[in-house]
């Protein structure tokens, strides 16, 4: 025993780098406890903003106020309403949340998973609010804010594949921003975009994240949508797009989250593989459910135009214009109508 002690005393001390307990022995445990508190604190804070009783606009407004710290005036400008109206909207949302009660105990695995899903949906709502606003300088920054919130969440829940998928999805969609509009502010479709303008930094990060998420082998809607965006991002030219892969991914999304909008998107991929007639057949059963949806009539008009059914195409485009959400969307459809008028000014079909 003495020999062992003596030998130990003669050994040089290890370097600082390999000593794990330079601080108080409890520091690491305290950090972990703090970390887990913070995770649930931030998740709770975000979760109260997406109470199911709150309409989407109130969820977004509350999150931007409470989590992001934007002023009421900033949020009001982004939503094109007066300060007083926005103040009222936020106050109402807070009152509703307070009335519903907030759980303060540490959530179990199932509750945490449900909260994460609700928060992810709310963050994606914020992103879409900015994305659909196009170049509107007040609302477009909502995309960056949504990505920032997703990064916070990802930093706290590093092994959640759906949060990786959500972040990747938004990064990949945002990477196309510099190519989405022309000098006049008109929409440029994905096929026609100058892909050299896409933001490589965001693409690299998004691709790395979706690859990492997929390795968890626990697919979810955000991962599939991110994989769709990644398939586009990997095509250096529009003609290199792997449409079969896109159709396959939309089919998976349809099974996981059936919705007429997903089927509509799949029809676009289907048209690339099987022609506009086959895609049109996919759209017909959706009309009742998507009768107020701009993109439905935009896609329908495109397919009809490709088939040379000009009168029907015009009717669909007219309907799309009446449903356009932004001036850029309306201008894009008007361009198709102008083309139809120029090509066949006197014919009715």
């Amino acid at each position, binding site marked *: 025993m003495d020999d062992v002690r003596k030998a130990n005393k003669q050994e040089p001390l290890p370097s600082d780098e390999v000593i794990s307990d330079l601080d108080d022995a409890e520091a690491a445990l305290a950090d972990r406890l703090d970390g887990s*508190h*913070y995770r*649930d*604190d*931030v*998740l*709770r*804070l*975000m979760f*109260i903003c997406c109470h199911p009783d709150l309409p989407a606009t109130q969820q977004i407004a509350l999150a931007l106020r*409470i*989590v*992001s*710290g934007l002023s009421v005036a900033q949020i009001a400008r982004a939503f094109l309403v007066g300060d007083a109206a926005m103040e009222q909207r936020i106050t109402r949302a*807070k009152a509703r*949340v*307070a009335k519903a009660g*907030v759980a*303060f105990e540490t959530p179990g695995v199932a509750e945490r998973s449900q909260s994460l899903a609700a928060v992810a949906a709310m963050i994606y709502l914020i992103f879409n609010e900015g994305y659909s606003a196009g170049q509107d300088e007040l609302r477009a920054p909502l995309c960056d804010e949504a990505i920032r*919130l997703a990064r*916070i969440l990802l930093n706290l829940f590093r092994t959640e594949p759906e949060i990786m998928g959500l972040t990747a999805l938004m990064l990949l969609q945002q990477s196309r921003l510099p190519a989405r509009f022309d000098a006049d502010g008109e929409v440029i479709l994905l096929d026609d975009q100058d892909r050299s303008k896409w933001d490589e930094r965001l693409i690299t990060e998004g691709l790395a994240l979706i690859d990492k998420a997929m390795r968890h082998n626990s697919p979810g809607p955000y991962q599939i949508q991110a994989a769709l965006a990644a398939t586009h991002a990997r095509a250096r030219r529009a003609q290199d797009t792997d449409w079969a892969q896109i159709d396959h991914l939309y089919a998976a999304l349809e099974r996981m989250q059936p919705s007429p909008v997903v089927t509509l998107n799949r029809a676009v991929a289907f048209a690339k593989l099987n022609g506009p007639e086959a895609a049109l057949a996919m759209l017909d059963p959706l009309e009742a459910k998507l009768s107020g949806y701009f993109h439905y009539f935009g896609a329908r008009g495109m397919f009809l135009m490709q088939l040379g059914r000009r009168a029907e195409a015009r009717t669909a485009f007219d309907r799309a214009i009446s449903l356009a959400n932004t001036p850029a969307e309306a201008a894009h459809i008007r361009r198709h109508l102008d083309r139809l008028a120029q090509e066949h000014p006197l014919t009715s079909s």
Partner: protein
Amino acid sequence: MNDLEWIEAALTAARPQAMGALLRYFRDLDRAEEAFQEAAAARSGRVAHFGRPQRCIG
């Protein structure tokens, strides 16, 4: 980046965690917000007076 921009960025970055912890403590959104605003105003005042805090390197 001037001091004002720096403090704004620091507060924005700290807000979710700070507000989350304050909400756990107060269990009331308005009181948590109020406490955060007070702390933010105090910190902004210190930065305006003493400049940005220096990271300890010793």
